[in-house]
């Protein structure tokens, strides 16, 4: 396939990796966080870590919307789906996420709730149009990549004059999460993750552009290289990060120039701003309550807001106490550090959200990486965690 196959050339990847090995300083250890689950998946699936020298380490970030959605919001969605008059439309990724008391959307569906998996928010609008007797609720999640689609679906429902369509909005913002990872002031030393830079978001950046990362790179003195999701994109971005570190630079660079511009997609930004506004605060799994980190539907579109319509009041709910998802999402632990990993927790029976989504660090490690743990039984269990430089 055009624009895919050429970025998976194994020979070229190994050759660029050889350049990384040559340029990475022998007396230095490099730790880079790939923010996105899409990058985590690519790194695991294509064995990018095996190409890198031992002193270049990748740390998985929180950029997986399914993984960072707190349990309380899944509980809310299940309650919405259980109402006799509602049809809850959701992306398939959310169906098996564990909620409180062992519940999930899949189990609610099996118990008779009208919960349907859809490909596009447009499908939810079309269901509402075709079935006027049903109150259709779209369970919207995702970073800035997915938000414009939800905005356009609400606009379409309004143009069609639908009164039986609403959105349970859980859209979150990438720059706020990067800030939460870097801004560790006031946190105990064990909760600070040492990083030398970020592989920055790919498709989020097609919407918001590279400009929003500029202030973060400067304030925290960490290089950011926006990169595509193909393995060669990731390898090239790592080389660009190594070069920035070696040259003492901390700027935003764009590896994904075929899809991402400085300013991003202005039409998408306008559609988002028309429908959504900032929430004061929103809970993220692993990162806690983050100010100005999520969106809600504006008053002018209240008719389409499931939270207002059904008076949703989220009750915070605890994760499985043994689940290490929270620390994995912040880069403090690896999947193998969790005692549930591969024992009671696997993609078939996930205990935590990181094992559900194929982009989650645990699912990626289970599917593609766990043979490495067996090959290296003497590998240290816990990553060294040091104070931020």
């Amino acid at each position, binding site marked *: *396939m*055009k*624009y*895919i196959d*050429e*970025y*998976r*050339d*194994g*020979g*070229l*990847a*190994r*050759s*660029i990796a*050889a*350049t990384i090995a*040559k340029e990475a300083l022998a007396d230095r250890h490099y730790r880079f966080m790939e923010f996105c*689950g*899409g990058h985590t998946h690519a790194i695991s*699936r*294509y*064995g990018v870590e095996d190409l890198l020298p031992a002193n270049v380490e990748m740390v998985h970030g929180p*950029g*997986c919307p*399914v993984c960072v959605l707190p349990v309380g919001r899944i509980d809310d969605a299940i309650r919405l789906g259980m109402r006799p008059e509602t049809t809850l439309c959701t*992306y398939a*990724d959310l169906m098996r996420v564990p909620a409180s008391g062992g519940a999930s959307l899949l189990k609610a569906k099996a118990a008779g709730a009208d919960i349907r998996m859809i*490909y*596009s928010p*447009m*499908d939810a609008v079309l269901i509402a149009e075709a079935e006027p007797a049903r109150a259709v609720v779209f369970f919207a*999640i*995702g*970073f800035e*990549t*997915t938000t*414009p*689609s939800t905005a*356009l679906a609400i606009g379409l429902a309004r143009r069609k004059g639908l009164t039986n369509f609403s959105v349970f909005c859980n859209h979150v913002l990438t720059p706020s999460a990067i800030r939460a990872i870097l801004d560790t002031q006031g946190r105990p030393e064990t909760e600070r993750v040492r990083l030398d830079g970020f592989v920055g978001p790919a*498709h*989020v950046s*097609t*919407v918001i552009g590279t400009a929003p990362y500029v202030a973060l790179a400067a304030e925290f003195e960490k290089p950011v290289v926006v990169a595509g*999701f193909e393995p*060669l*994109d990731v390898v*090239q971005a790592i080389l660009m990060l190594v070069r920035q570190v070696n040259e003492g630079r901390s700027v935003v660079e764009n*590896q994904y*120039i*075929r*899809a*991402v511009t400085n300013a991003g*997609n202005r*039409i*998408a930004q306008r559609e988002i701003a028309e429908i959504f506004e900032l929430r004061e605060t929103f809970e993220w799994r692993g990162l806690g309550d983050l100010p100005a980190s999520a969106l809600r539907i504006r008053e002018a579109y209240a008719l389409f807001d499931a939270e207002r319509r059904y008076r949703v009041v989220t009750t915070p709910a605890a994760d499985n106490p043994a689940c290490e998802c929270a620390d994995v999402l912040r880069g403090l632990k690896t999947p193998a550090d969790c005692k549930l990993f591969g024992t009671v927790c696997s993609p078939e029976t996930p205990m935590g959200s990181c094992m559900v*989504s194929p*982009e989650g660090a645990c699912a990626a490690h289970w*599917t*593609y990486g766990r043979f490495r743990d067996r090959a290296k039984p003497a590998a240290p269990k816990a990553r060294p965690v040091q104070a931020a430089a």
Partner: protein
Amino acid sequence: MCLAIPIRVEALLPEQMARVTLSGVSKVVSVALLEDVQVGDYVLLHVGYALTRLDPDEAERTLALMREAAVPGLPAPGLPALGEVAA
């Protein structure tokens, strides 16, 4: 979740929709987020909406920069491609 695939625009349809194909599968998607989409353009498709147009010149420049970053003569020929081994 942020998965998006490069896909070719085959025909423009009313109401800012377009017909696209990928490996023989045809689908009608929204191009409302893009300006001046043309038949033959490659766009990144995400949950039924085209997010951005792929720039063929920048794609070529990226590959050129990758080749430039490679160590000449490496790797030895005959190594397997990255990819579907674990799928």
